[in-house]
């Protein structure tokens, strides 16, 4: 974990409500895909947790959906710098992926899968990527994933693009392992549908984001864990669904 100022280099919409922001700063603490950063914003008490989408040198890319006070404030920014805690969370472990892992992202769960896919491909693996959205106009980053060299399936709930249905409807064929990030109902469906071991990334309202407050705890097979520090990525085997 590191605290530092990151300078806004770019802040562009990729869909109507999802923005891509490029930030320049000390990215040294970011060590694994699936980690997140925690962003301080003027006038808001709590930082806002956002997944790392990509890191290239000292450039950090995040993708975020404007859904409330904080993200709407970010949406309006064109320059300046942000106070960011980086390198938070455990991130995905790629060592157990096998040859043909399945990478599944839904909605704003898509961003961390980009850096994960990049890493898997860098390690010589052949990930298949499923990106799930509600409608065609909500789709983002399909091309970026393809440009990494991954095989990409897009699903839309209303069938307006790609495979009609949920990400689980595309979880066909063989795969060696799976990685998922998305809303909780999606994670649960993926968990149930999956035929292999895998890792899933969770969200929770956070006080600190670095393990100090116990605001984000969950029960697992291996005892209580903090989503922010011991997660956000949990292994399939340890998950105890609350609902």
């Amino acid at each position, binding site marked *: 974990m590191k605290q530092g100022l990151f300078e806004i280099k770019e802040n562009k919409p990729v869909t109507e409500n999802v923005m891509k922001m490029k930030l320049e700063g000390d990215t040294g603490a970011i060590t694994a895909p699936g980690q997140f950063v925690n962003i301080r914003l003027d006038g808001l*008490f*709590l930082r806002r947790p956002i997944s790392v989408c990509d890191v290239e040198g000292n450039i950090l890319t995040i993708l975020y959906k404007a859904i409330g006070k904080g993200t709407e404030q970010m949406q309006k920014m064109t320059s300046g710098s942000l106070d960011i805690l980086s390198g938070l969370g455990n991130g995905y472990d790629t060592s157990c992926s096998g040859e043909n892992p399945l990478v599944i992202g839904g909605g704003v769960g898509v961003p961390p899968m980009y850096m994960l896919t990049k890493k898997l491909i860098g390690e010589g693996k052949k990930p298949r990527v499923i990106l799930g959205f509600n409608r065609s106009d909500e789709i983002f980053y399909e091309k970026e994933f393809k440009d990494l060299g991954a095989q990409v399936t897009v699903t839309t709930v209303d069938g307006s693009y790609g495979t009609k249905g949920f990400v689980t409807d595309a979880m066909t064929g063989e795969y060696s392992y799976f990685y998922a990030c998305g809303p909780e109902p999606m994670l649960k469906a993926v968990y149930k549908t999956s035929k292999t071991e895998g890792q899933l990334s969770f969200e929770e*309202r956070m*006080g*600190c984001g670095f393990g*100090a407050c*116990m605001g984000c*705890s969950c029960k697992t097979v291996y005892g*209580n864990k903090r989503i922010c520090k011991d997660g956000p990525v949990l292994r399939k085997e340890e998950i105890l669904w609350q609902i």
Partner: protein
Amino acid sequence: MADMKVNLCGIEMDNPVMAASGTFGYGYEFAELYDINILGSFSFKGTTKDERFGNPTPRIAECTAGLINSVGLQNPGVDKVISEELPRLAKCFSKKVMANVSGFSTEEYVYTCKKLDSCPQVGWLEVNVSCPNVHGGGMSFGTSPEAAAEVTRAVKAATTKPVIIKLSPNVTDIVSIAKACEEGGADGISLINTLLGMRIDLKTKRPVVANRMGGFSGSAIFPVALRMVYQVASAVKIPVVGVGGISTAEDVIEMMLAGATAVEVGAANLVNPYACRDIIEELPEKMKKYNIESLKSIIGGAI
């Protein structure tokens, strides 16, 4: 040279700045960022007899200048605290630490305090009487002078270290409760714990935290904390630890003028993990600005 030393219940502290219970874990996360030995001390996460998961999530709600938490005293239980957390803490913190203790009956408080009393690392026992009293109808120990005094007496009888009673602000008459604790033998009073607060999510139209209500803290509550510290420090002879909304060196000075011998920084640590360090580094400069040579000398200066 700015003299920041204070003495809290017989223990010398390099400076009056502590981290508040529940906002600093057992210190490790912060030790990754800076040497936490610069702190006066800190109060570790509230410890109970048995392990507790705490309340369901979501446990956190944002507020103007603060947050609500309904963690619900998640902790591994006193035995694991002693066998696992304290040895690990010893590697990054060489000063006396404050042990924050909670319980749902007088016996539980005594049990936990007794165990922690035997730990050489522990300097003070901070007894949080904000928990509901399961044997006393569910109102918290800290809302009646009698119940607070009873816990104080029982803990004092079973321990040797200084006992600081941490009071809840959600009461009509904080002074009578503080006085009852003093009469019960308390060595100090710390206050305030969180204000009971709530937020509702406009999208779901349900309370934000699963437990509906929670503890509200952060800079927003500073004026309430300051008032209670002032009232209690004016009324008791034992030292008072000022807690609530502190986030700057100036807040520390203001709390001490109101009567605090030492202070605890809570929610500020969560949003600025360097908060305590920043405050300690800023103190000498602010002391100079306000013509203060020794912090000890300003305790209760506004009373």
